[in-house]
């Protein structure tokens, strides 16, 4: 899959770490999202650049000690779809 995804602009987001979970306030919608791993890490590595799910999974593996025995790319795709329905991630055409 070469579909690229882009996270909402950093200026639109306010993060708050609660140890057991991360809160994310999305300014344009006024909605607060409670995020569990790996979602905060996914948004963090996307860093405003358009990336494929494979590229995101690769960055996660490079920056974190990723749980073994899982298909990271498939899980990233599932979480990106979830984030798209929430308006936090968009698909990039071309």
């Amino acid at each position, binding site marked *: 899959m070469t579909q690229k995804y882009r996270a909402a602009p950093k200026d639109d987001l306010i993060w708050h770490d609660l140890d057991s979970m991360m809160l994310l306030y999305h*300014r*344009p*919608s*006024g*909605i*607060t*999202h*409670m*995020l*569990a*791993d*790996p*979602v905060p*890490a996914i948004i963090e590595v996307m860093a405003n650049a358009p990336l494929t799910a494979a590229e995101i999974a690769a960055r*996660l593996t*490079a*920056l*974190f*000690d*990723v*749980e073994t025995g*899982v*298909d*990271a790319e*498939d*899980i990233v795709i*599932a*979480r990106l779809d*979830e*984030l798209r*329905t*929430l308006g936090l991630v968009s698909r990039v055409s071309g």
Partner: protein
Amino acid sequence: MDENSMKEGLPSESSVETDQKNGIVTRRRALMMGAITASAVVSIKPALAQTAGSVLNCEIPVPGNHAAGGYIAADGTVVTADTPGAFPAAGRNFTGEEVLQAMNGRTLPGTSYDQSQAYVNYIRRLQSGQSGFTCYASLQMPR
């Protein structure tokens, strides 16, 4: 992250790597990926003290005061009046009910298909603080 620290690690601890420049040992944070089907987000919408009836009666001006005098381009951005293909301001405010129906395929009252699309795109771009934002936010479908 330092790329050098990713090349080799201590044999017995794959998550601990030595920064070859400084000899500093760094441990990457463990990241649980969860299951494919496991949702990882719970969303809290802003508290809007309105009944279902009044939500649909709330109004959205196109454009709002913050963009008075502007025209609406096909993608919903506010542009100058001489922009080719842009639509003038709507002659009336639209109710939440009308916008909800427009988002589900009908056109906004008194508009052509393209004009309605442009207006809906404008509404989708509304941000907190802009007139009509609260009305639009209250229309968003719950997960």
